């Protein structure tokens, strides 16, 4: 659903506190979407999109579940309006997936040999130290490190 602020939308209380940050993140996202692709690999130009999406969802998740600064109503409002990805947040609630970068990296159906992406492997078990996963450019999202 397009995020057009029509007058129909009724914002719950507490919205004014989080609105500026969310606006900034949205602006960042637009910038990432309009970035030229010069000098970047095909997959690399998509990485900022995933990164910012993760950031937005993380902000709202933190506010509600960690810092408990917003009400349930506001939280659900943000999810409905599309300021955060509720599927990703659902994964963050599970043990072992607290730092998941994106949903694709965890999906074994999307990979050869039904494995996860390499960014899900903890650093001490990996052979290469420095990696950037090809989907989202993640450098390591295992919960341990």
């Amino acid at each position: 659903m397009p995020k057009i602020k029509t007058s129909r939308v009724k914002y719950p209380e507490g919205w004014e506190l989080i609105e500026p940050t969310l606006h900034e993140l949205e602006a960042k996202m637009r910038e990432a979407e309009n970035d030229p692709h010069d000098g970047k690999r095909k997959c690399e130009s998509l990485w900022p999109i995933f990164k910012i999406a993760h950031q937005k969802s993380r902000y709202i998740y933190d506010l509600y579940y960690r810092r408990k600064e917003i009400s349930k109503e506001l939280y659900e409002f943000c999810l409905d309006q599309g300021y955060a990805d509720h599927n990703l947040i659902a994964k963050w609630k599970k043990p072992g997936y607290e730092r998941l970068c994106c949903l694709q990296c965890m999906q074994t159906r999307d990979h050869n040999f039904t494995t996860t992406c390499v960014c899900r492997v903890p650093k001490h078990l990996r052979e290469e130290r420095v990696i950037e996963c090809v989907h989202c450019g993640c450098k390591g999202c295992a919960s341990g490190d």
Partner: protein
Amino acid sequence: MAHRLLRDAQADGWERSDFPIICESCLGDNPYVRMTRADYDKECKICTRPFTVFRWRPGRDARYKKTEICQTCCKLKNVCQVCLLDLEYGLPVQVRDTALAINSNDAIPKSDVNREYFAEEHDRRARAGIDYESSYGKAHPNDTILKLQRTTPYYKRNRAHVCSFYARGECTRGAECPYRHEMPVTGELSQQNIKDRYYGVNDPVALKLLSKAGEMPSLSPPEDESIKTLYVGGLDARITEQDLRDHFYAHGEIESIRMVLQRACAFVTYTTREGAEKAAEELVNKLVVKGLRLKLMWGKPQASKPEGEVPEDDVTKQGLMSLGGMLPRAVISQQQTNQQPQPPGTQDQQQPPLHYFNIPAPPPVERTFYPSMDPQRMGALVPSQEASDNKGGSEKQPQQQGLLRAPNSSGQAYPVLPPHLQSQYPQYYPPYGYMAPPRPPYQQQYPPYQSMMAPPPPPPAPPAMQQYPPGAPGSSSQG
């Protein structure tokens, strides 16, 4: 062309297979390999027909490799599907064909439809099992092939390709760049064409190999005519004396083989100089035992020494050692005092108390059981000249004593020994390159040896006789 729609997989000539035909190097060093199979994924680089592509990673530091040519093309030339080198020898097609004088090039058409038709026909026949003859299985490897073939897999070709951005100085990936950050090697060998390599025409690597084969140095016989010993280097624990014997017996009568495992080498001595020369000629560059390519050189030149004489200082021990380790004690104790540089491999036997186990020369014996236990009786130094003559005369005795001494080294390795033997053993010099046999069998042999000590005395001269009376009480005390 083969770019028809797939109606009937078999009839249309689209190839489907269950496992790739690849060489060891391409498969990699990892026994656990995960391979993906994709039917009709790519077209063969030679015949351009769709075929099953297999993709895997041949080892931890390797890039992903995939089959490049179809199995039909690969079977026609007996090459690996990935690297297009021969499956048995690891050589380029051109090298193998010129070496074995096979010329199948005329049969395989190279142009367009002709080529496809040929490939399909061949495929159809192979599947039907008719008329399929491959000349590659029947050919015997000849000299050139043996000299040039790869004996171990070569994993360097599985490394990642060189980062082309790095070559320009523009690689922004830095540490996570999976490509090699080295400057690319340019030269004639870099301009290779897969079709040229497959058909065996104009292949720069093959040309280089062939010219190298022509120039491979042959082992020239040394000027000193008395050398009958060949040095074999690069041994492994898997290679036994019997293996060496099998390889060397064909060229002449082998007098002795000594293996020095500490130095991964062996010395093969022939009874005749001609035999040694013949062996050198035939085996140089071609000696491959149990898959290991061995180095063959002449043994170090030296003046030969008859057994009984006292060796001079500058005589290296190899000639003496090449008698199969039947050296009399006199010689050994003499050599022990010499501080000369010695050829590799003989050093262990030469100064055994110093070298072996880093134990200094043992003190003289307190009790003697066998004459062989006492260097004096065995003819050490001056009084024993005659004794050493006698010892040299009968080969059997040294052999027995050699065998008796064998447990000595095991005695040193295993500190627990029957007490009556313990005092004697540190004094022993380790047998000449023998692996210490397990003790138990030898312990059982002591009683028979004791009895055997009595019969041999009659042949040797009286000086030898005097060894045995003391030996008898010794043996009786042991028994």
